[in-house]
Protein backbone atom coordinates (compact mmCIF):
# COMPACT_ATOMS: atom_id res chain seq x y z
CA UNK A 1 0.00 0.00 0.00
CA UNK A 2 1.29 3.37 -0.90
CA UNK A 3 0.32 4.83 2.40
CA UNK A 4 2.64 2.47 4.20
CA UNK A 5 5.37 3.02 1.65
CA UNK A 6 5.33 6.71 2.32
CA UNK A 7 6.42 6.25 5.92
CA UNK A 8 10.01 6.85 6.85
CA UNK A 9 10.75 3.18 7.48
CA UNK A 10 9.47 2.25 4.07
CA UNK A 11 11.60 4.91 2.45
CA UNK A 12 14.59 3.32 4.09
CA UNK A 13 13.51 -0.06 2.76
CA UNK A 14 13.25 1.39 -0.70
CA UNK A 15 16.69 2.86 -0.35
CA UNK A 16 18.14 -0.51 0.64
CA UNK A 17 16.52 -2.06 -2.38
CA UNK A 18 18.58 0.34 -4.43
CA UNK A 19 15.60 2.19 -5.80
CA UNK A 20 16.20 5.78 -6.69
CA UNK A 21 12.50 6.45 -7.05
CA UNK A 22 11.31 9.27 -4.82
CA UNK A 23 7.71 9.41 -5.89
CA UNK A 24 5.14 7.55 -3.80
CA UNK A 25 4.73 4.06 -5.17
CA UNK A 26 1.23 3.45 -6.40
CA UNK A 27 -0.30 0.01 -6.15
CA UNK A 28 -3.61 -1.54 -7.01
CA UNK A 29 -4.73 -1.00 -3.42
CA UNK A 30 -4.37 2.73 -3.64
CA UNK A 31 -7.57 4.35 -2.50
CA UNK A 32 -9.19 7.35 -4.04
CA UNK A 33 -11.54 9.59 -2.14
CA UNK A 34 -15.00 9.58 -3.62
CA UNK A 35 -17.72 10.76 -1.26
CA UNK A 36 -21.14 9.08 -1.47
CA UNK A 37 -19.96 7.34 -4.67
CA UNK A 38 -20.51 10.71 -6.23
CA UNK A 39 -18.20 13.55 -5.28
CA UNK A 40 -14.68 13.00 -6.54
CA UNK A 41 -12.06 14.61 -4.38
CA UNK A 42 -8.60 15.55 -5.63
CA UNK A 43 -6.29 14.52 -2.79
CA UNK A 44 -3.01 15.05 -4.61
CA UNK A 45 -2.07 17.65 -7.15
CA UNK A 46 0.94 19.47 -8.56
CA UNK A 47 2.11 22.15 -6.15
CA UNK A 48 1.07 25.72 -6.98
CA UNK A 49 3.81 27.74 -8.65
CA UNK A 50 4.44 29.94 -5.65
CA UNK A 51 5.73 26.97 -3.62
CA UNK A 52 9.49 26.70 -3.95
CA UNK A 53 10.25 23.54 -2.02
CA UNK A 54 7.34 21.18 -2.64
CA UNK A 55 6.54 19.52 -5.93
CA UNK A 56 3.28 17.77 -5.10
CA UNK A 57 0.59 18.64 -2.61
CA UNK A 58 -1.44 16.10 -0.64
CA UNK A 59 -4.66 16.35 1.30
CA UNK A 60 -4.38 15.29 4.94
CA UNK A 61 -6.72 12.43 4.01
CA UNK A 62 -3.77 10.72 2.31
CA UNK A 63 -1.93 10.41 5.61
CA UNK A 64 -4.69 8.78 7.61
CA UNK A 65 -5.31 5.12 8.29
CA UNK A 66 -7.77 3.23 6.15
CA UNK A 67 -10.36 3.20 8.94
CA UNK A 68 -10.22 6.96 9.30
CA UNK A 69 -10.27 7.48 5.53
CA UNK A 70 -13.40 5.35 5.22
CA UNK A 71 -15.32 7.59 7.60
CA UNK A 72 -15.16 10.38 5.06
CA UNK A 73 -16.35 8.36 2.08
CA UNK A 74 -20.00 8.31 3.07
CA UNK A 75 -21.82 11.28 4.57
CA UNK A 76 -23.74 8.96 6.85
CA UNK A 77 -20.53 7.64 8.36
CA UNK A 78 -19.03 11.12 8.73
CA UNK A 79 -19.99 12.50 12.15
CA UNK A 80 -19.07 15.99 10.91
CA UNK A 81 -22.26 15.90 8.87
CA UNK A 82 -24.26 16.15 12.11
CA UNK A 83 -22.97 19.72 12.31
CA UNK A 84 -23.88 20.31 8.68
CA UNK A 85 -27.45 19.18 9.40
CA UNK A 86 -27.66 21.51 12.41
CA UNK A 87 -26.47 24.42 10.26
CA UNK A 88 -28.97 23.55 7.55
CA UNK A 89 -31.75 24.08 10.09
CA UNK A 90 -30.04 27.24 11.34
CA UNK A 91 -29.85 28.59 7.78
CA UNK A 92 -33.62 29.22 7.81
CA UNK A 93 -33.74 30.49 11.41
CA UNK A 94 -34.40 34.21 11.87
CA UNK A 95 -31.41 36.00 13.40
CA UNK A 96 -31.55 38.64 16.11
CA UNK A 97 -34.85 40.48 16.54
CA UNK A 98 -35.52 40.81 12.85
CA UNK A 99 -36.99 38.60 10.21
CA UNK A 100 -33.73 38.04 8.38
CA UNK A 101 -32.21 34.60 8.14
CA UNK A 102 -29.39 33.34 5.92
CA UNK A 103 -32.12 32.13 3.57
CA UNK A 104 -33.50 35.67 3.18
CA UNK A 105 -30.59 36.54 0.92
CA UNK A 106 -29.22 33.13 -0.06
CA UNK A 107 -32.08 30.97 -1.16
CA UNK A 108 -30.46 27.73 -0.02
CA UNK A 109 -27.06 26.58 1.19
CA UNK A 110 -26.53 25.24 -2.35
CA UNK A 111 -26.70 28.83 -3.61
CA UNK A 112 -23.36 29.30 -1.82
CA UNK A 113 -21.64 26.64 -3.90
CA UNK A 114 -18.12 27.75 -4.75
CA UNK A 115 -17.80 30.22 -1.90
CA UNK A 116 -15.58 28.07 0.35
CA UNK A 117 -13.13 27.50 -2.50
CA UNK A 118 -12.12 31.16 -2.81
CA UNK A 119 -11.92 32.18 0.86
CA UNK A 120 -10.04 33.89 2.49
CA UNK A 121 -10.68 36.66 0.00
CA UNK A 122 -10.09 40.37 -0.40
CA UNK A 123 -13.12 42.45 0.60
CA UNK A 124 -13.12 45.70 -1.31
CA UNK A 125 -15.61 47.51 0.93
CA UNK A 126 -13.78 46.59 4.13
CA UNK A 127 -10.34 46.99 2.60
CA UNK A 128 -9.08 43.73 4.12
CA UNK A 129 -8.79 40.03 3.54
CA UNK A 130 -11.75 38.23 5.05
CA UNK A 131 -12.12 34.65 6.13
CA UNK A 132 -15.40 32.82 5.65
CA UNK A 133 -16.10 33.27 9.35
CA UNK A 134 -15.65 37.04 9.06
CA UNK A 135 -18.00 37.10 6.09
CA UNK A 136 -20.63 35.08 7.99
CA UNK A 137 -20.37 37.48 10.90
CA UNK A 138 -20.70 40.43 8.54
CA UNK A 139 -24.00 38.93 7.38
CA UNK A 140 -25.10 38.14 10.93
CA UNK A 141 -24.38 41.61 12.29
CA UNK A 142 -24.76 44.03 9.38
CA UNK A 143 -27.50 42.35 7.37
CA UNK A 144 -29.50 40.70 10.11
CA UNK A 145 -28.63 43.10 12.94
CA UNK A 146 -27.83 40.26 15.33
CA UNK A 147 -24.98 39.78 17.78
CA UNK A 148 -21.84 38.33 16.16
CA UNK A 149 -21.22 34.62 16.52
CA UNK A 150 -18.21 33.36 18.45
CA UNK A 151 -15.45 32.95 15.85
CA UNK A 152 -14.68 29.35 16.76
CA UNK A 153 -18.02 28.57 18.43
CA UNK A 154 -20.14 25.60 17.50
CA UNK A 155 -22.74 27.63 15.60
CA UNK A 156 -20.14 29.34 13.43
CA UNK A 157 -18.16 26.17 12.84
CA UNK A 158 -21.24 24.25 11.80
CA UNK A 159 -22.28 27.02 9.41
CA UNK A 160 -18.81 27.05 7.86
CA UNK A 161 -19.02 23.25 7.57
CA UNK A 162 -22.34 23.58 5.74
CA UNK A 163 -20.96 26.21 3.37
CA UNK A 164 -17.89 24.00 2.75
CA UNK A 165 -19.98 20.89 2.20
CA UNK A 166 -21.77 22.36 -0.82
CA UNK A 167 -18.41 23.12 -2.48
CA UNK A 168 -16.88 19.69 -1.94
CA UNK A 169 -15.00 18.52 -5.01
CA UNK A 170 -14.35 22.04 -6.28
CA UNK A 171 -10.70 23.08 -6.46
CA UNK A 172 -9.39 25.41 -3.77
CA UNK A 173 -8.55 28.62 -5.61
CA UNK A 174 -7.68 31.52 -3.33
CA UNK A 175 -6.31 34.67 -4.93
CA UNK A 176 -2.88 35.71 -3.69
CA UNK A 177 -2.15 38.63 -5.94
CA UNK A 178 -3.59 42.12 -6.25
CA UNK A 179 -4.86 43.64 -3.02
CA UNK A 180 -4.55 40.30 -1.16
CA UNK A 181 -0.83 40.05 -1.81
CA UNK A 182 0.33 42.01 1.22
CA UNK A 183 -1.70 39.82 3.58
CA UNK A 184 -0.50 36.71 1.76
CA UNK A 185 3.13 37.81 2.20
CA UNK A 186 2.50 38.35 5.90
CA UNK A 187 1.05 34.85 6.16
CA UNK A 188 4.04 33.40 4.34
CA UNK A 189 6.39 35.11 6.76
CA UNK A 190 4.51 33.64 9.72
CA UNK A 191 4.65 30.20 8.08
CA UNK A 192 8.44 30.32 7.93
CA UNK A 193 9.01 32.01 11.31
CA UNK A 194 10.15 29.82 14.21
CA UNK A 195 7.98 30.28 17.28
CA UNK A 196 8.10 29.20 20.88
CA UNK A 197 10.63 27.56 23.14
CA UNK A 198 10.90 24.71 20.66
CA UNK A 199 11.67 27.19 17.90
CA UNK A 200 9.49 25.54 15.33
CA UNK A 201 8.00 27.09 12.23
CA UNK A 202 5.01 25.57 10.41
CA UNK A 203 7.47 24.65 7.68
CA UNK A 204 9.71 22.59 9.97
CA UNK A 205 7.03 19.94 10.32
CA UNK A 206 4.69 20.41 7.39
CA UNK A 207 7.18 21.22 4.65
CA UNK A 208 10.48 19.67 5.77
CA UNK A 209 9.06 16.57 7.40
CA UNK A 210 5.68 15.64 5.96
CA UNK A 211 5.47 11.88 5.39
CA UNK A 212 7.71 11.28 8.40
CA UNK A 213 6.41 10.06 11.71
CA UNK A 214 6.18 12.44 14.65
CA UNK A 215 6.02 9.85 17.40
CA UNK A 216 3.21 7.58 16.21
CA UNK A 217 1.58 10.16 13.98
CA UNK A 218 2.00 10.39 10.23
CA UNK A 219 2.86 14.03 9.58
CA UNK A 220 0.81 15.66 6.87
CA UNK A 221 1.48 18.76 4.81
CA UNK A 222 -0.84 20.70 7.09
CA UNK A 223 -3.28 21.41 4.29
CA UNK A 224 -6.52 23.11 5.32
CA UNK A 225 -8.77 22.16 2.39
CA UNK A 226 -10.61 19.73 4.71
CA UNK A 227 -11.66 22.22 7.39
CA UNK A 228 -13.78 22.29 9.42
CA UNK A 229 -12.48 18.90 10.43
CA UNK A 230 -14.20 16.31 12.59
CA UNK A 231 -11.40 14.97 14.76
CA UNK A 232 -11.61 11.56 16.37
CA UNK A 233 -9.45 13.01 19.11
CA UNK A 234 -12.13 15.34 20.45
CA UNK A 235 -15.27 14.13 18.69
CA UNK A 236 -16.28 17.47 17.23
CA UNK A 237 -15.81 19.85 14.32
CA UNK A 238 -12.58 21.83 14.60
CA UNK A 239 -11.86 25.19 13.01
CA UNK A 240 -8.72 26.14 11.08
CA UNK A 241 -7.75 28.80 13.61
CA UNK A 242 -8.16 26.44 16.56
CA UNK A 243 -5.91 24.01 14.75
CA UNK A 244 -3.32 26.73 14.14
CA UNK A 245 -3.57 27.62 17.81
CA UNK A 246 -2.96 24.00 18.82
CA UNK A 247 0.14 23.79 16.66
CA UNK A 248 1.61 27.09 17.84
CA UNK A 249 0.85 26.21 21.47
CA UNK A 250 2.76 22.96 21.05
CA UNK A 251 5.85 24.91 20.04
CA UNK A 252 5.50 26.33 23.56
CA UNK A 253 4.69 29.79 22.30
CA UNK A 254 2.08 32.35 23.20
CA UNK A 255 -0.31 31.83 20.34
CA UNK A 256 -2.15 34.30 18.18
CA UNK A 257 -5.90 34.36 18.78
CA UNK A 258 -8.49 32.81 16.50
CA UNK A 259 -9.75 35.56 14.23
CA UNK A 260 -6.59 37.68 14.73
CA UNK A 261 -5.04 39.41 11.69
CA UNK A 262 -2.03 37.08 12.02
CA UNK A 263 -4.14 33.92 11.76
CA UNK A 264 -6.21 35.44 8.94
CA UNK A 265 -2.99 36.05 7.02
CA UNK A 266 -1.70 32.58 7.84
CA UNK A 267 -4.98 31.03 6.72
CA UNK A 268 -4.76 32.79 3.36
CA UNK A 269 -1.19 31.61 2.88
CA UNK A 270 -1.81 28.02 3.98
CA UNK A 271 -4.99 27.87 1.87
CA UNK A 272 -2.95 28.99 -1.14
CA UNK A 273 -0.57 26.07 -0.60
CA UNK A 274 -3.61 23.88 -1.25
CA UNK A 275 -4.72 25.59 -4.48
CA UNK A 276 -5.59 22.68 -6.72
CA UNK A 277 -6.76 20.26 -4.03
CA UNK A 278 -10.52 19.87 -3.60
CA UNK A 279 -12.61 21.48 -0.92
CA UNK A 280 -13.23 18.58 1.49
CA UNK A 281 -14.83 20.05 4.61
CA UNK A 282 -16.14 18.66 6.78
CA UNK A 283 -13.36 16.09 6.62
CA UNK A 284 -12.52 13.38 9.18
CA UNK A 285 -9.08 13.26 10.75
CA UNK A 286 -7.45 11.72 13.81
Amino acid at each position, binding site marked *: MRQTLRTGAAWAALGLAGSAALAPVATAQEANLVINDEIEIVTKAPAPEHMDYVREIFSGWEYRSRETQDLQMDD*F*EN*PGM*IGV*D*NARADFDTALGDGEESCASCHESPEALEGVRAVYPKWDEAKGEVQTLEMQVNECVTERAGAEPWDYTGQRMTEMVALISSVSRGMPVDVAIDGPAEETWEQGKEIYYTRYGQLELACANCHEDNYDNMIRADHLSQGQINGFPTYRLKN*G*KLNTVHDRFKGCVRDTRAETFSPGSPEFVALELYVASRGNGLSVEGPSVRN
Partner: protein
Amino acid sequence: MAENVTPRVRVPKEATAGEVITIKTLISHPMESGQRKDKEGNLIPRSIINHFTCSFNGETVIEVAMEPAISTNPYFEFQAKVPESGTFTFTWIDDDGSTYEETKEIAVA
Protein backbone atom coordinates in the same frame (compact mmCIF):
# COMPACT_ATOMS: atom_id res chain seq x y z
CA MET B 1 -31.18 16.05 28.71
CA ALA B 2 -28.15 16.37 26.53
CA GLU B 3 -28.50 19.21 24.04
CA ASN B 4 -29.01 18.86 20.32
CA VAL B 5 -29.52 15.12 20.31
CA THR B 6 -30.50 14.24 16.78
CA PRO B 7 -30.95 10.67 15.58
CA ARG B 8 -30.00 9.79 12.02
CA VAL B 9 -31.03 6.52 10.45
CA ARG B 10 -30.40 5.02 7.05
CA VAL B 11 -32.89 2.42 5.86
CA PRO B 12 -33.64 1.50 2.24
CA LYS B 13 -37.06 2.70 1.09
CA GLU B 14 -37.97 -0.59 -0.54
CA ALA B 15 -37.23 -4.28 -0.18
CA THR B 16 -38.52 -7.61 -1.40
CA ALA B 17 -40.39 -9.86 1.04
CA GLY B 18 -37.92 -11.63 3.34
CA GLU B 19 -34.98 -9.55 2.15
CA VAL B 20 -32.12 -8.84 4.54
CA ILE B 21 -31.23 -5.16 4.57
CA THR B 22 -28.43 -3.15 6.17
CA ILE B 23 -29.37 -0.41 8.60
CA LYS B 24 -27.07 2.32 9.89
CA THR B 25 -27.77 4.63 12.80
CA LEU B 26 -25.89 7.62 14.18
CA ILE B 27 -27.07 9.82 17.01
CA SER B 28 -25.41 13.04 18.14
CA HIS B 29 -24.51 12.65 21.82
CA PRO B 30 -21.36 13.48 23.82
CA MET B 31 -21.38 10.10 25.65
CA GLU B 32 -19.66 11.66 28.66
CA SER B 33 -17.89 8.67 30.13
CA GLY B 34 -17.61 9.70 33.77
CA GLN B 35 -13.85 9.21 33.52
CA ARG B 36 -12.89 12.69 32.38
CA LYS B 37 -11.98 15.66 34.53
CA ASP B 38 -12.74 19.31 33.89
CA LYS B 39 -10.15 22.10 34.03
CA GLU B 40 -10.49 22.36 37.82
CA GLY B 41 -9.81 18.67 38.20
CA ASN B 42 -13.36 17.69 39.11
CA LEU B 43 -14.77 14.53 37.66
CA ILE B 44 -17.34 15.24 34.93
CA PRO B 45 -20.36 13.08 35.78
CA ARG B 46 -21.27 10.25 33.45
CA SER B 47 -24.01 11.09 30.95
CA ILE B 48 -24.51 8.58 28.18
CA ILE B 49 -27.11 6.87 26.07
CA ASN B 50 -27.29 3.47 27.73
CA HIS B 51 -29.73 1.56 25.54
CA PHE B 52 -30.66 1.26 21.89
CA THR B 53 -33.44 -0.74 20.28
CA CYS B 54 -34.55 -1.32 16.72
CA SER B 55 -37.84 -3.06 16.06
CA PHE B 56 -39.99 -3.66 13.01
CA ASN B 57 -43.78 -3.71 13.32
CA GLY B 58 -43.30 -4.38 17.03
CA GLU B 59 -40.81 -7.25 16.70
CA THR B 60 -37.23 -6.83 17.85
CA VAL B 61 -34.38 -6.62 15.37
CA ILE B 62 -31.60 -5.71 17.78
CA GLU B 63 -31.22 -4.40 21.28
CA VAL B 64 -27.97 -2.98 22.62
CA ALA B 65 -26.95 -2.38 26.23
CA MET B 66 -24.45 0.49 25.93
CA GLU B 67 -21.60 1.41 28.26
CA PRO B 68 -19.41 4.54 28.41
CA ALA B 69 -16.87 2.86 26.11
CA ILE B 70 -19.14 3.54 23.13
CA SER B 71 -17.73 6.56 21.26
CA THR B 72 -19.18 10.05 21.07
CA ASN B 73 -22.04 10.18 18.55
CA PRO B 74 -22.89 6.46 18.83
CA TYR B 75 -22.93 4.58 15.56
CA PHE B 76 -24.44 1.17 14.84
CA GLU B 77 -24.66 -0.91 11.72
CA PHE B 78 -26.68 -4.14 11.64
CA GLN B 79 -28.98 -6.20 9.47
CA ALA B 80 -32.74 -6.71 9.50
CA LYS B 81 -35.08 -9.12 7.82
CA VAL B 82 -38.10 -7.47 6.20
CA PRO B 83 -41.09 -9.83 6.06
CA GLU B 84 -43.65 -7.24 4.93
CA SER B 85 -44.23 -3.53 4.47
CA GLY B 86 -44.10 -1.65 7.73
CA THR B 87 -42.27 0.63 10.10
CA PHE B 88 -38.90 0.45 11.76
CA THR B 89 -38.81 2.09 15.16
CA PHE B 90 -35.49 3.17 16.65
CA THR B 91 -35.25 4.13 20.30
CA TRP B 92 -32.32 5.47 22.30
CA ILE B 93 -32.53 5.85 26.09
CA ASP B 94 -30.45 8.47 27.88
CA ASP B 95 -29.05 8.14 31.42
CA ASP B 96 -31.27 11.07 32.37
CA GLY B 97 -34.39 9.20 31.28
CA SER B 98 -34.87 11.03 27.99
CA THR B 99 -35.92 8.91 25.05
CA TYR B 100 -35.05 9.71 21.47
CA GLU B 101 -37.10 8.02 18.80
CA GLU B 102 -37.05 7.82 15.02
CA THR B 103 -39.21 5.81 12.62
CA LYS B 104 -38.69 4.76 9.01
CA GLU B 105 -41.20 3.23 6.62
CA ILE B 106 -40.23 0.51 4.22
CA ALA B 107 -42.35 -0.80 1.36
CA VAL B 108 -42.23 -4.43 0.28
CA ALA B 109 -42.83 -4.66 -3.44
